[in-house]
């Protein structure tokens, strides 16, 4: 796969030799990936394979023990998560992490801190810059809620919304930061089958409408097979397979990782 890509373009995400150790445990070891603009890529692996750790490293929540992560050519070494967000990485979480007691509108608005364009004193003085920026942020937030069909809930608190709607809101919140790279961590977890179908439609629609690269972790294989252009498989922190959904489906290493060796 890698050879097909023209070497002169700057990838949206480039990870080389990424390793993360927790005490004696190597959660991620020598992980490499290169995501181009507008790709939709999957990351799968058995439980505890280190998938979420990779996402945590990319979003800056953990610092790597070794290796580099580049977002649009810029290294994220030593950056705190909010700085990584400013570089254009947004994510959702396995267990939804919305701000449960803030309104839906505020959940979107508050996620714009990296591009607020005003600080404490403008906020207190209600300067013209403050008013212009707040108006713009509110307008954009409403636009986003509208396309996600969340406008009727704008004044509700997420804790009172159905689970599927919370998932959708979390994706909307991530997109509101204007990312180049969107990380979806098990977006289908906890959804019923109707919701899963809607999720597939939603992700495909986002991929078509927003100028964004999507990288997702998911256990629902049908979701991955249907959506992803290519899939990476990891186990015990190491890459064991990579390719189109078709290749992955029949890859012996993947089958043995998921189902165990036939010798058992």
């Amino acid at each position, binding site marked *: 796969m890698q050879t097909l890509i023209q070497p002169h373009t700057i990838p949206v995400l480039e990870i080389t030799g990424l390793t993360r150790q927790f005490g004696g445990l190597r959660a991620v070891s020598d992980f490499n990936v290169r995501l181009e603009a507008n790709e939709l890529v999957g990351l799968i692996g058995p439980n505890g394979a280190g998938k979420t750790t990779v996402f945590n490293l990319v979003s800056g929540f953990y610092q790597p023990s070794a290796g580099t992560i580049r977002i649009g050519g810029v290294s994220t070494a030593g950056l705190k998560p909010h700085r990584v*967000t400013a570089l254009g990485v*947004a994510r959702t979480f396995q267990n939804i*992490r*919305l701000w449960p007691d803030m309104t839906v509108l505020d959940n979107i608005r508050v996620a714009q801190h990296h591009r607020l364009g005003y600080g*404490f004193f403008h*906020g207190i003085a209600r300067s013209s810059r403050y008013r212009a920026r707040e108006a713009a942020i509110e307008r954009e937030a409403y636009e986003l809620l509208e396309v996600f069909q969340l406008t009727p809930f704008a004044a509700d608190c997420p804790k009172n919304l159905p689970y599927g709607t919370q998932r959708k809101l979390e994706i909307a919140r991530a997109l509101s930061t204007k990312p180049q790279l969107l990380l979806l961590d098990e977006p289908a977890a906890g959804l019923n089958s109707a919701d899963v179908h809607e999720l597939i439609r939603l992700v495909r629609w986002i991929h078509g409408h927003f100028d964004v690269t999507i990288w997702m972790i998911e256990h629902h294989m049908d979701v991955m097979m249907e959506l992803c252009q290519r899939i990476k498989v990891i186990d015990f922190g190491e890459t064991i397979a990579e390719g189109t959904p078709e290749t992955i489906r029949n890859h012996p290493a993947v089958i043995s990782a998921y189902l165990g060796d036939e010798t058992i």
Partner: protein
Amino acid sequence: MVLRHYTVPILLAVAGGVLLYVAKEELVSLYVLSVLMFMGVNVILATSLNLVNGYMGEFSCGHAGFMCVGAYVASILGVLLFSGHKAFGAAWLPAELAVWGFPLLILAGGAAAALAGLLVAIPSYKTRGDYLAIITLAANYIIISLIENLDIIGGSRGFMGMKKIVNGMEEAVALPWMPLWVLAFTVFCVWLLRRYLSSTFGKGVTAISQDEVAAEIMSIDTNKIKTITFMLSSGLAGIAGGLFAFIVGYVNPGSFNILKSTEVLVMVYLGGMGSLSGSILAAILFTVLLEALRPLQIIKWVVIPLLLIIIMQFRPEGLMGNRELGDLFPRLKRFYRFK
């Protein structure tokens, strides 16, 4: 109603006018006036602590320490500039100038207290919850202990001379300066908090309290917001401290001990975490209660805690919960706007 934009300023102007009139004509006793002023001080203390304890979800229990810094800095600066002191020599400026200099004194106290707030803000990057609570507690003790050991400003005996400045102000321009300034600063503090918390920038504070990890990953510079929030909270406590010092005319470290911090905590939780109007209400009620029960002497401190325990049994989320006046009575919103 366009008028609603002016409701609050008009009400405040009327309140100021009435205050001015009553104080000037001596329609109420000095005692009532001082209770009113303590109310203002308590409102500032309660709302500013609510910023940290209610909105940011930390448990700061050393608010009186920052009040202490503000009180001492404002007092010392005031005495140094406008009245002279045996340790510092004669006044540097004529006493009449105090009329103009007074708000600057109070603000200087607030600024110093805001700097002292760094004592808590910086550990808060790594330390959270009850461990941070201890750091605030320790900060309270450290500040008081430091002042007790500074003999030049009186140590544990305290520091005085502020009455002279207040008298000087009233001699220069015959107005009841203290009540007016307390009213002005109280409104200023609540207004400041209200504006901070209603901006998208300030809502980062609430986001941190509800999910700090999500806040950091979803673009919020949590350390910056924590620093600003702690400094704002302690700075406002410093303003309250400065006002307190000039109302009483005398400060000693003992007035800013844990018991004072406890009083402020009680006001915050009585009013409701995350409700500025709740804190205002609770501060007023608490001040009144404290004065009304004064005849009971020592039993007062049995009756008040008992009352509070009973109130909390019936309203375990505080008087206002985490709602504001406008949320409780939506119709009121038609008549006023405070932002």
